[in-house]
């Protein structure tokens, strides 16, 4: 996809080098960003983990709207990462996801299955049934009409909300500009119409200079959706100024660590180059078959298979590093050249050494048989009996329930080999 726009290896290597500079000067650049934002009137907050971030955001929401009320949410993986909606609801607020895909996810009590296209696992009929159930309008299966029903429903949220919450695609350290890209316009509404805008950002999403934006905007658009430029690029430098007729009165930036500083110090450091374009998901043969939910984490696909265990440890998430054929397509399409296959191997090794990624019982049995000839021979004799036995038994439950072992035809290779003249 990227090659359409001349995103050659040279361009990607350049982008990777800029992100590597950011990672090796992160402390310095974060302080520079904080100073620039503060100068612009953006209030900067720091959150060491997800609990701190939720507490901070809810504190800001309570200050902005003590009686609760609607919070307009723009699509943000960082807010998914800390499960912000759940915490907002518990605190008496009504978060409304305003991106079309995220809105469907929210009314269905589902979770996104892709970084960029959250409802890639649903079709128009699923959306039609959900919208009918939520009384958004007369039943229709036409995407245009469904989109217009969502448009009119969500308009009131933008007008009612005292608070808008968004993520950040890039924050420019030298200028303190928060850059958010999108195609729909809901993000612009959420960050413009409410009186208070709160932006949540992982600490690694920095760029040093404004002059780095053209390269990264081009890479993220072409890698994410094959566009040369997204419909909207919002470059926020602060709250409404006294001579400007609209915009939020307060802008808050919450800088989220949540495991990132630990990753920065370790073997998976380059995963922090990630700009969340989703290209590795689109190209991954495992992701394409299994879909995002199979990974059991907000970050799925190749990026998730590294980021989830890197952030949360191999003990909790190491198993997802196995969800790869190591074909290398992810590294090939990555606009910042993250060596994902190398990291997946390293994670598997780490998980194995930690004793948390042993093989499942059937595979262990197979491995034992495959390395012990006498056991293999015995197994071959027993196998026909095992498959003939009545269910339930291990070979006819779970995955095997709806599958059949191949039937043995003729004599075995071994008996032919020993008997050959």
């Amino acid at each position, binding site marked *: 996809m990227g090659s359409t726009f001349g995103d050659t290896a040279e361009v990607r290597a350049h982008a990777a080098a800029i992100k590597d500079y950011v990672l090796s000067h992160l*402390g310095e650049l974060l302080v520079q960003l904080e100073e620039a934002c503060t100068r612009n009137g953006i209030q900067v907050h720091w959150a060491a983990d997800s609990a701190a971030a939720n507490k901070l955001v809810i504190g800001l929401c309570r200050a902005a709207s003590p009686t609760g009320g609607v919070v307009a949410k723009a699509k943000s993986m960082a807010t998914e990462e800390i499960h912000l909606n759940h915490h907002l609801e518990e605190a008496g607020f009504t978060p409304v996801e305003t991106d079309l895909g995220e809105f469907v996810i929210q009314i269905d009590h589902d979770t996104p299955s892709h970084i960029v296209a959250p409802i890639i696992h649903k079709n128009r009929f699923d959306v039609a049934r959900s919208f009918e159930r939520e009384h958004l309008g007369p039943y229709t299966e036409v995407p245009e009409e469904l989109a217009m029903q969502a448009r009119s429903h969500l308009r009131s949220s933008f007008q009612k909300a005292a608070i808008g919450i968004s993520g950040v695609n890039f924050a420019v350290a030298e200028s303190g500009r928060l850059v958010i890209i999108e195609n729909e316009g809901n993000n612009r509404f959420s960050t413009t119409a409410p009186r208070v805008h709160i932006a949540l950002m992982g600490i690694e999403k920095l760029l040093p200079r404004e002059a780095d934006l053209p390269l990264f905007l081009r890479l993220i658009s072409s890698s994410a959706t094959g566009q040369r430029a997204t419909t909207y690029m919002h470059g926020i430098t602060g709250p409404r100024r006294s001579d400007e007729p609209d915009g939020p009165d307060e802008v808050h930036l919450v800088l989220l660590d949540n495991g990132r500083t630990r990753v920065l110090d370790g073997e998976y450091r380059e995963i922090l180059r990630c700009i969340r374009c989703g290209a590795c998901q689109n190209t991954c043969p495992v992701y394409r078959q299994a879909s995002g939910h199979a990974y059991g984490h907000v970050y799925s696909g190749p990026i998730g298979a590294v980021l989830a265990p890197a952030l949360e440890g191999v003990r909790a998430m190491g198993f997802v590093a196995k969800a790869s054929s190591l074909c290398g397509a992810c590294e090939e399409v990555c606009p910042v050249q993250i060596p994902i296959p190398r990291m997946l191997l390293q994670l598997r090794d780490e998980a194995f050494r930690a004793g948390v990624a042993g093989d499942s019982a059937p595979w262990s049995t197979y491995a034992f048989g495959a390395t012990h000839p006498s056991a293999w021979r015995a197994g071959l004799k027993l196998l026909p009996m095992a498959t003939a036995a009545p269910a339930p038994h291990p070979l006819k439950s779970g995955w095997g329930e709806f599958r059949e072992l191949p039937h043995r035809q003729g004599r075995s290779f071994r008996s032919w080999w020993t008997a050959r003249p």
Partner: protein
Amino acid sequence: MSDRDSILAAIRDRGGSELPPPWPAAPVDGSLVARFEAELAALGAEVVSASRLSELAGATVFADADVPPEYLDGLIQLDDVWRADIGLTLADFGIAATGTLVLNAGPGRHRLASLAPPHHVAIVSRRTILACSDAAIASLTTRTTVFVTGPSRTADIEGVIVRGIHGPRRLWVMLTA
């Protein structure tokens, strides 16, 4: 220890590597205006002459304070941006390579004018059309800005592109001297 201090303490800057220079801008061949118009057309926006505004007579409009009054003939001016049929704004720059409009916030510039109404009409001077986003970003001020590239769109339902999901469905661009 505050979260700020603990985060900064946990980061041990390695320093060393040099910041590579910004990636050089790609040149745009030929006429910038012609390229700008072609890109806009490909995005589903329309490049229109001022006379097309007469088609809109009787429609309600929310206009930026700096839009010259002759553009408002025949239109009904509203001061509620959420109810207007048309948002009429100036754009600070056009970007030829991508058909992008640059709208900086400022006095008399309502950010919602280019977003809330279903039809956005932007007035751009030919003299302000730049080759690529590099030049536009280099000329940004310290104010908030938005780059608009075509009408609002989504592809969330089965990848089908639908225009006008939250922002304007129609985008007209009027080129002036």
